[in-house]
């Protein structure tokens, strides 16, 4: 029976992966006990290859031996299974849900590739383009936040919701890139709402435990940059 205290929950992941962070934040918000199985950077375990043969990527949630793949799908799954534990991650209204889903797709399609493009793009010109795209995306997300939050602290309103998790999991990496590149992605002048939102998000207890320290991410980024064409464990 879904949600029973005896159900076994495992999460295959890695400490630095923002996609994994989405799943962990959702599990923590729903107070789900789970075993975190850390994949080693650069290798893929048997369990990962067996559980996610199509993408071979983390995160993979394994619930009573059934694998669920893709971070946003995992977050929705968690919300639907542990429905009576903690506030709902998805809004109640169908149109609000559509907005959360649209912007989550936008984040994965446009924002995240631009964010990591700043580090991974092959030329300085491409890196600069990525930076422009990342900043432009955040500007659109700033406007979206204004409409969706309706004056409350989160996209989800009073409590953290699906879209907060979708974007918030990347705040650690955003801070790391800000430090490495010496410019602000979230800027009090240009994206004041998102600045306040990021602070509220990171101040949440269960979130704070998951988002890695900026210094550690910066160190990892430098290691990765030194390895030609390496990438953070991501899905």
């Amino acid at each position: 029976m879904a949600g029973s205290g005896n159900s076994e929950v495992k999460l295959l992941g890695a400490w630095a992966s923002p996609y994994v962070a989405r799943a962990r934040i959702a599990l923590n918000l729903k107070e789900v006990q789970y075993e975190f199985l850390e994949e080693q950077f650069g290798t893929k375990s048997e369990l990962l290859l067996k559980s996610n043969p199509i993408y071979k990527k983390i995160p993979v949630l394994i619930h009573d031996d059934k694998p669920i793949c893709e971070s946003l799908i995992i977050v929705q799954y968690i919300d639907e299974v542990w429905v009576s534990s903690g506030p709902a991650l998805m809004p109640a209204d169908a149109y609000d849900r559509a907005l959360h889903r649209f912007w989550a797709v936008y984040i994965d399609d446009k924002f995240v590739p631009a964010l990591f493009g700043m580090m991974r793009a092959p030329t300085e010109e491409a890196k600069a383009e990525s930076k422009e795209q990342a900043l432009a995306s955040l500007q659109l997300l700033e406007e979206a936040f204004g409409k969706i939050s309706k004056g409350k602290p989160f996209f989800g309103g009073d409590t953290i919701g699906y879209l907060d998790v979708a974007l918030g999991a990347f705040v650690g990496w955003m801070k790391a890139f800000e430090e490495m590149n010496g410019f602000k992605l979230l800027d009090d002048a240009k994206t004041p709402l998102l600045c306040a939102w990021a602070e509220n998000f990171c101040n949440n207890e269960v979130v704070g435990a998951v988002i890695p320290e900026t210094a550690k991410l910066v160190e990892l980024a430098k290691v990765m940059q030194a390895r030609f064409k390496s990438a953070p464990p991501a899905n």
Partner: protein
Amino acid sequence: MVASAAVRLFGMWASPAVRRVEWALKLKGIEYEYIEEDLSNKSSSLLEFNPINKQVPVLVHNCNPIVESLVILEYIDETWKENPILPVDPLERAKARFWATFVDVKCREESRKAFFMEGEEKEKAIENLQVQLKALDEELEGKKFFSGDHIGYTDLAVGWMAFWLGVAEEAAGFKANYDVKFPNFSRWMKDFLAEPVIKDNLPPREKTVEFFRAFKQLGSCTKVNQK
């Protein structure tokens, strides 16, 4: 039947993403106003309702715009409860969403490359597409449709492949050979296209092939403005 004034769909006749939404609306018996867009000269309404992507389809319900065809499908399912297209069980829902995003992101990417590119890159894309088709073929083992005995969300999501993959092959001169290599998938394509809601809601094949042939000639930099 639901009052038509409340539901509007901005679309383009050749677009698979638009048809996907229409299939869902028709499966649920929802009446809607269809607005054909000239994507080379987009209407001010489209730009107003979808300033972010400026793409079709856009569903407008009670003046609220919903964008991204898979997001629209979930919205339709949650708003009109008859003939549900997504399963109830969370694990089955997760699987349905998994295959939908697999097809929309991965298969579409390889299909696009097979369509636009030539030579070695084209061959590589076809190879990759076949690996993907194999996965879909295996998923169909023992099932008439991805969603079971009746078509559902996953079938609607994969549905573009049943018609537009063949169109792309003809327009761009390649073959993914699913009829030979992937019997379950091949069978599914025929069964899907035979469903009344689908059969009665496809663009004319010749015209669509011509359209995509011309589209390919415009060059590989052009993106089809739809999702």
